[in-house]
């Protein structure tokens, strides 16, 4: 073979060979969670820890524990009161912790009940398909067509006549969360139900309930759990919105939304009343969203990575 005719080959070799060793990193790169994830997770752990332990912590004060402070004299943050004291004589830090207790409780309860109902509906529609699915989807579409906040207001208004309490707020928000959660669970179920291992289980004679429990749920729950974190964030914000409209949990229980709403009037003179709860809420929601996103991308099953 004449030399001149091997130009292509020679080129290819020159081009490829020097790079070949560089490409070989000698093992796969470990996926890292990243500092952002750990910071967010740490923040969530601190917030949850404080919320759960609040009644037992010595530095969490009762509401109105410092009546000596008046609007004129009370100061901003100090060593005794890191977030300051507000016009009701409450230690703002204690209020923020207690508010987080309620807000997080609302968030969790709503997501859990929403997922139990919505998840069941979604899995049913996604797995059985056909007529069942068409009916479910149609109902979900109707629910999704309502403006959520208006529906919540109406529900709370009708049930309590304006004087909302914790169960009613949770119930209202749960009802609102059912349709979106059902829809996203349905999508995840549809994707999993199409997989060959589900068909394979079927060809081995597995019954439908068994397929749902053994094949579908274990593959649907992890991504849904990750998604649930972002839903908690949404619910906390929604509670805040209700508080602004005066329809959140009635006194004395504080929530972040209520604290911000109450502090808003004194934003110019005593910014810390509203800003500390707002900042806490902001960071918590940011963390929930970030952790939720990272986990979701981890749990999304990519064919290639299987």
């Amino acid at each position, binding site marked *: 073979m004449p030399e*001149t005719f091997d130009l292509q080959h020679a080129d290819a070799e020159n081009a490829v060979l020097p790079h070949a060793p560089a490409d070989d990193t000698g093992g796969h790169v470990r996926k890292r969670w990243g500092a952002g994830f750990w910071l967010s997770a740490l923040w969530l752990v601190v917030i949850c820890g404080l919320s759960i332990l609040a009644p037992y912590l010595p530095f969490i004060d009762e509401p109105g524990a410092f009546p000596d402070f008046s609007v004129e004299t009370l100061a901003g943050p100090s060593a005794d009161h890191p977030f300051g004291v507000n016009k009701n004589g409450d230690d703002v830090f204690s209020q923020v912790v207690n508010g987080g207790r309620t807000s997080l409780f609302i968030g969790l309860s709503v997501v859990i009940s929403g997922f139990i109902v919505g998840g069941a509906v979604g899995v049913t529609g996604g797995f059985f398909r056909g007529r069942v699915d068409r009916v479910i989807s149609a109902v979900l579409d109707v629910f999704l067509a309502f403006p959520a906040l208006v529906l919540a207001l109406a529900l709370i208004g009708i049930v309590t006549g304006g004087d909302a309490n914790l169960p009613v707020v949770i119930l209202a928000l749960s009802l609102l969360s059912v349709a979106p959660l059902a829809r996203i669970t349905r999508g995840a179920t549809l994707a999993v139900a199409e997989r060959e291992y589900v068909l*394979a289980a079927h060809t081995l004679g597995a019954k439908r309930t068994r397929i749902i429990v053994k*094949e579908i749920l274990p593959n649907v729950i*992890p991504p849904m759990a990750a998604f649930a974190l972002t839903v908690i964030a949404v619910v906390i914000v929604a509670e805040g919105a209700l508080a602004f409209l005066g329809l959140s949990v009635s006194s004395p229980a504080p929530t972040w939304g209520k604290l911000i709403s109450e502090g808003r009037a004194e934003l110019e003179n005593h910014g810390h009343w509203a800003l500390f709860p707002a900042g806490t809420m902001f960071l918590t929601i940011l963390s929930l969203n970030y952790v939720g996103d990272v986990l979701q991308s981890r749990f999304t099953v990519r064919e290639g990575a299987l």
Partner: protein
Amino acid sequence: MARRIIAAADGAHADHALLEVEDLRTHFLTPAGRVRAVDGVSFELARGRTLGIVGESGSGKTVLARSIMGLLPRSNVQRTGAIRYSGNDISDYSQAEMRSVWGPEMAMVFQDPMTSLNPVMRIGTQITESLRYHLDMSKAEANELAVSLLRSVGIPEPDKRLRDYPHQLSGGMRQRVVIAIALACGPKLLFADEPTTALDVTVQAQILNLLDTQQRERFMAMVLVTHDLGVIAGRAHDIAVMYAGRIVEKASARTLFSSMRMPYTEALLESIPKLEHRSHTRLASIPGRPPDLINPPAGCKFAPRCRYVQPRCLEEEPPLTPGVDEGHVYRCFYPVGTEAGREALARNLAEGRVPVADEVETGVVVGGPAPGADLDEGSW
């Protein structure tokens, strides 16, 4: 343990066909019209025999296998014809009745081992599940059998692998696991739907040999679905070539390869790259594409792509014609290797009517007038 199951399964009549399919039609009702995915397929399969079903994508081979197993979608499907399994017509079995057939009677090995194992379940659990359900075994018994199954499909250190998750195994190993799962309940009929398509070529032969060994040892009937004639050469006893939802040629493997009659079979065989081809030989392909299954052409479905095509082929559908050898049938008026076929081809060549096929052999020198090109054909 495994012995006992196989022995129990041996009671079936070896003389009598285990599976008889008669005029099976599976039509999908779509908004665009009726898709005739399987359109009048008949065959018989006895225990201990392997039937290879060959055809290109969309020829209906997978739908055929799934139709027999009763794995079609529940709505917008019409399946007619008879499917007799050890003498019982299972074509009108309900899902609940089929559940007793799946596993101990029929099982299926799927195409892609990447998606046919549950990613969040240990391999051991996936194997033992059906054992415990169908054969009523205790956990310990099932585990023991799972170990021996994994060993029999060639997985090293089977007792350790039981605790692995699918992602810890390579593609070839996963396909072995899939086969072990399919074999767990000792099926008498095994469907293998393109079992090697998703695997590396180096592993393909191993998996095919494994299926082959298992089929012989367990005296199973096996349906091996593939688009590659090379895959089933030497592995199937009989071969059915499918085109547009029908069997267009069926014969024993020996007959099919030595004296094929159907131009489509010939074209399929020619499209397998061969080692003795010079490097950079242009790959042969079949011109055109499979016909629209909603409005199939009148006459022979392969006619528009056929080298032997004659006016008659476009008007009249050739019936299944028996060939010289026993069991050989084909659908062609101008069969390959006969006088009629040779004449038809010669006529088409003379009139330049051959569908534009890519050349099977390119003796053509692409190097052009460059010096030394005559020495160098094929190096491009």
